[in-house]
């Protein structure tokens, strides 16, 4: 059983990759800020869970995955969908409930799916995606595919029985699952110490003889490196790995959260460690980006978002006639 702990303040990998990380995180941040706005404007409805503050996790982890790898995420999955390569337009249209959304508007914010990027949800049942991820890895193993299934979930999910059953099965059968715990220290309003008798989360995975690591989830480079090592281990051993990323959500749980359970001070403290600001600071130190460059980047992203919104606005509503489609597969499928 290996336990690795990342050191803080890793060196930047290289210019190109660092800038790529920045772009990806910024894309997620700005896209979600826009989404919150559109929620208030009632263009987006239902539950909207923002990933703001946690971007380094999805972006860093995605780096370790290849196109044949699979991803299973939660209702807080805009970041994963975007970093995996899905277009903003398809996601935005989905949240508008339009037919050009990635799921024709059937899923909404909590249920993003994509065949090309092997994104199997967008699962809104806490811990419900874990057994599915185990099964995807089992299918890969039985078909001698060398893919990794990356399964992301919050620390709150670890109290659910499904987490334990899934962890045991993956370990017992040595299945190639990269379990990524996005530990943002709260499950809605429930702090980790009110949810778990032991708050060292890696110890839970270790109890299944699954190798583990913990990484600073506010440092995208550290996450990328840890995820790389973790996925290498999965590929080498064929068995599972558990990676804890310590992070924080800057925003309420969803759009309906009174936010009474944590102090302003605590939130502010974490905001000081914003993964985007700190990466920019380091890039500037290196001289790899400057203010005009940053402005250009922001401009490009703003344009991308604008066109995604336009796309969503202009997309059609699916015909109500089709309501009962996709309950079962259309004839002829298998």
């Amino acid at each position, binding site marked *: 059983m290996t336990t690795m702990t990342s050191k803080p303040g890793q060196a930047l990998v290289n210019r190109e990759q660092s800038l790529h990380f920045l772009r990806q995180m910024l894309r997620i941040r700005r896209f979600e800020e826009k989404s919150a706005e559109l929620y208030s404007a009632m263009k987006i409805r239902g*539950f909207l869970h923002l990933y703001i503050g946690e971007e380094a996790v999805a972006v860093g982890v995605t780096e370790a995955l290849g196109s044949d790898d699979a991803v299973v995420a939660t209702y807080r999955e805009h970041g994963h969908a975007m970093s995996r390569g899905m277009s903003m337009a398809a996601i935005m249209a989905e949240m508008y*409930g339009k037919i050009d959304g990635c799921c024709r508007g059937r899923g909404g914010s*909590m249920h993003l799916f994509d065949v090309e990027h092997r994104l199997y949800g967008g699962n809104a*049942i806490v811990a419900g995606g874990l057994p599915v991820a185990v099964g995807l890895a089992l299918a890969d193993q039985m078909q001698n595919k060398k893919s990794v299934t990356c399964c992301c979930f919050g620390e709150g999910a670890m*109290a659910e*029985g499904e987490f334990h059953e899934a962890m045991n099965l993956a370990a017992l059968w040595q299945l190639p699952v990269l379990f990524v715990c996005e530990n943002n220290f709260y499950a809605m309003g429930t702090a980790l110490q009110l949810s778990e008798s032991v708050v060292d989360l890696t110890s839970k995975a270790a109890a299944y003889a699954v190798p583990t690591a913990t990484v600073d989830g506010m440092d995208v480079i550290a996450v990328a490196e840890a995820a790389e090592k973790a996925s290498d281990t999965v590929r080498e051993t064929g068995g599972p790995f558990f990676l804890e990323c310590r992070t924080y959500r800057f925003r309420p749980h969803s759009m309906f959260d009174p936010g009474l*359970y944590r102090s302003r001070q605590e939130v502010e403290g974490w905001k000081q460690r914003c993964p985007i600001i700190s990466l920019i600071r380091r890039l500037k130190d290196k001289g790899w980006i400057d203010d005009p460059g940053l402005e250009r980047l922001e401009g490009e992203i703003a344009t991308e978002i604008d066109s995604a919104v336009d796309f969503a606005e202009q997309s059609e509503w699916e015909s109500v006639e089709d309501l009962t489609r996709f309950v079962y597969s259309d004839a002829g499928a298998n």
Partner: protein
Amino acid sequence: MEQQLRKMNYRDALNEGLREALQKDERVFLMGEDVGRYGGCFAVSKGLLDEFGPERIRDTPLSESAFTGAGIGAALGGMRPIVEIMTVNFSLLALDQIMNNAATYLHMSGGLFNVPLVIRMATGGGKQLAAQHSHSLEGWYAHIPGIKVLCPATLEDARGMLWSALLDPDPVLIFEPAVLYPMEGELSADAGPVAIDQAKLLREGKDLTLISYGSCLHKCLEAASILAEEGIETDVIDLRTLRPLDDESFLASVAKTHRALIVDEGWRSGSLAAEVSARIMEQAFYQLDAPVERICTAEVPMPYAKHMEEAALPQVSSIVATARRMIDG
């Protein structure tokens, strides 16, 4: 002296019911995800942690099966727990405890151990929460012997059913339609416990019986007003208790109107509406002038898009149209 009426919403009425129960009986406590510090995922338990403290307003880890089972054990051990499950879709994780334990202990033990447990949860669609948060499974739960199933549709019931459920010696499930939480209304100052073994006739008419419960009840009442303008007078029955059903209520009405339409937010096949229809078939067949009909939710996992969700759910317009067709033949 005239009864004082107070303005409040359905959520407030639930909150008052909880507060009263906690005040009246110290064996009562509330347990569930985020009922305390967060104030309840739908804010129903807001303020209770401050008033009653963390011993009696217990935030639980995400583990529906364990805390529901713990509710069963605590009930067996002499407490009067109220378990809150955030929404009915998550209750599937606790179904083993509900069906295999709560509903069977009394029977398996030959009458030795009853389980005085109340489980509350939000149910239903209408908030664009899509396929894992929107189902209406209360009618489905009503299939299980050993439990009772309530669905308050009015402020009065939201306020009063809880205490009656707590007095019941057996497990009672209370389903709260999530779309009703912000519903405004008036409640008398001395509102208190209500009967939980009877349906209620909310509007009287001679031409047709509308049978419903929960959020669809309000659609039926709206439809009834529209129909009345056209000269079609309807009885509107709020079932209130889905298990055991109060057959007398709708049989008496059908004996008068000879026509019945059931409106139910559950999926059609195997719905509570099917059960009501079958009971009318069995007990009032010869009094019917037309076949009993059902309006239910389309048999799809709930879609996110608003227009699709609306198309899936029963709507006033379809109730009105169906009623008209049933009367005009």
